[in-house]
């Protein structure tokens, strides 16, 4: 069952009176209890995609078309009040920056309790108990004591754990994690990813995980969407993407993973730079950096073509 389905989502910024397309026909879906990863470089529109699901894109961004269907309802069409009830209760999101995502003037306990209070009418003791259980679940030592701590008294990893606790406090059906481990060091990163796996099993969550880190993707994903400059260029399950990448960008990405590099061998990288979302190349956005681009690539936008079951590629040069 598809719990979330995004169809042909188009989003643009209004700049000097004209519309600059930043998300171009984004389509993807998340099935129940599945982990879906969106991979892409910085500035390719990953965060914008996750924010547009819960309608929290910056005010200068305009959604130009498409649908976001969550449990049969188009989230882009429902009134703001209903949307507020979905946020935090049905769909939760965890942001990249644990250092600034907690309000500095309130204790952890206050913020956690508030997250529960606004969605559920339960007694104070129950809320208190649930908060402590949540903090224990996400692996915060001496949870009772930590309830009274202020954010600045916690480490980055602990703050991200608190953010996760806040996100799952009302047992959401879908959890969006927007680069939740990027700001943390590698050991903490591994622990947090382990925590996600555990929570997914315990809470029967669907997880939409947005990252630029391919090793994380290989670790947790069921299915993967590769994003480049506001467009999904390749989709498929984790094996299809990692063992049989079709799009030149995906191949380039996989080649540039520093894996068993020999001495004196240079790290591989994709030549050129990621285009600015406000200044996207014509046709296939990857053509200026593509090794094998031809005329058609800068004239026409490639369509998604499916090579095998569930494995789609947006590339003109796809043989067959």
């Amino acid at each position, binding site marked *: 069952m598809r719990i979330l389905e995004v169809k042909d989502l188009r989003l643009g910024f209004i700049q000097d009176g004209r519309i600059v397309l930043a998300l171009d026909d984004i389509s993807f879906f998340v099935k129940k209890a599945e982990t879906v990863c969106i991979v892409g470089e910085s500035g390719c529109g990953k965060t914008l995609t996750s924010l547009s699901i*819960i309608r*929290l894109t910056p*005010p200068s961004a305009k959604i130009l078309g498409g649908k976001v269907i969550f449990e049969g309802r188009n989230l882009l069409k429902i009134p703001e009040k209903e949307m*507020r*009830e*979905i*946020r*935090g*209760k049905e769909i*939760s*999101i965890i*942001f990249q*920056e644990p250092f*600034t*995502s*907690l*309000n*500095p*003037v*309130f204790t952890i306990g206050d913020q956690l309790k*508030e*997250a529960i209070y*606004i*969605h559920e009418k339960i007694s104070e003791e129950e809320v208190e108990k649930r908060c402590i259980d949540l903090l224990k679940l996400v692996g915060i030592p001496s949870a009772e004591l930590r309830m009274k701590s202020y954010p600045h008294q916690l480490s980055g990893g602990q703050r991200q754990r608190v*953010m996760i606790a*806040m996100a799952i406090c009302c047992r959401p059906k879908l959890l969006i994690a927007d680069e939740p481990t990027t700001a943390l060091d590698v050991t903490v990163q591994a622990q947090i990813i382990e925590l996600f796996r555990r929570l997914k099993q315990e809470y029967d969550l669907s997880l939409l995980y947005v990252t630029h880190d391919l090793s994380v993707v290989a670790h947790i994903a069921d299915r993967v969407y590769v994003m480049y400059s506001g467009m999904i260029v390749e989709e498929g399950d984790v094996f299809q993407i990692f063992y049989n990448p079709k799009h030149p960008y995906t191949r380039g990405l996989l080649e540039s993973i520093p894996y068993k590099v020999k001495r004196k061998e240079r790290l591989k990288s994709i030549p050129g730079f990621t285009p600015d979302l406000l200044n996207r190349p014509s046709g296939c956005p990857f053509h200026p950096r593509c090794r094998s681009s031809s005329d058609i690539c800068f004239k026409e936008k490639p369509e998604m073509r499916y090579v095998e079951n569930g494995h789609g590629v947006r590339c003109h040069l796809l043989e067959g």
Partner: protein
Amino acid sequence: MSTWQLLKKNRLAILGLVFLLFFFLFAIFGLIVTSGKNPIFNPYTIRLQEKLKPPFSKANKEVLSPDQIPPFGIYIFGTDDLGRDVFSRMLQGAWVSLTVGFVSVGISTAIGIIIGGIAGYYGKEHPFVDILITGMIDIMLCFPSFFLVLTVMAFVPGSIYTIMAVIGLTNWMGTARFVRAEFLSLREQDFILAAKALGLSEFRIIFRHMLPNAMAPVLVSATLGIASAILIEAGLSFLGFGVPPPYATWGGILSDGRRYLFDAPWLTFIPGIAILFVVLSFNLFGEGLRDALNPRLRE
């Protein structure tokens, strides 16, 4: 370091705080002993036989009826031109200054927070609202605030409540500017986006998550605002637009006393020095608070 520890290092601020506490006690004590039917310190008793007595002079018990004799039989701050006890009048006036200061600043801070908050929070999505509000603030700031108050007071009946309201309604611009600036930067913070993502309403985000983060500069400007409100009230009373007689206010005592500046200088010096010290203490404490709340001073 905590705010209190930083504040404690500032000797002048602590001096101001100590004096303010003394002033509070004096005003509250004044309210208790000067109100009621037969107050212990009666600011209204007229003793024409005993007018313009210097401070600490003994009351002449032979010419006064028993209910005219001041407590302890001495005029601590002397008497005025009607033989009223200046100490009793100072006690009564302290409460006026205190309430005018706090109530008018309460009004102006509340207005400033609401107006500044609206401009700061909604200003980016609705530039028209922001232009309207900042324009209004600029227009209000064009008028020197004392003359604005004076003009309004010329049209409304003078009473302690209208003074509070008028001072409050004409002094909210500074707070509004602070709050707008704070809100403009706060609304871009990650934790506000995180709060929205949890499904919080705008009302809750503004008042529970943004306002506490913007309170430090508001608190400082309120402290300094109390001093200026007390000064405005004293100035109004001095010019005769303030709280109507026979109710005593410090500005009023000062104003009445200026005709006897050479014969009875205590009538002007005592309220003048009192106003000076209270305003100075509020300013010293407010500035100390501003430094102590400055996050850059903490390690």
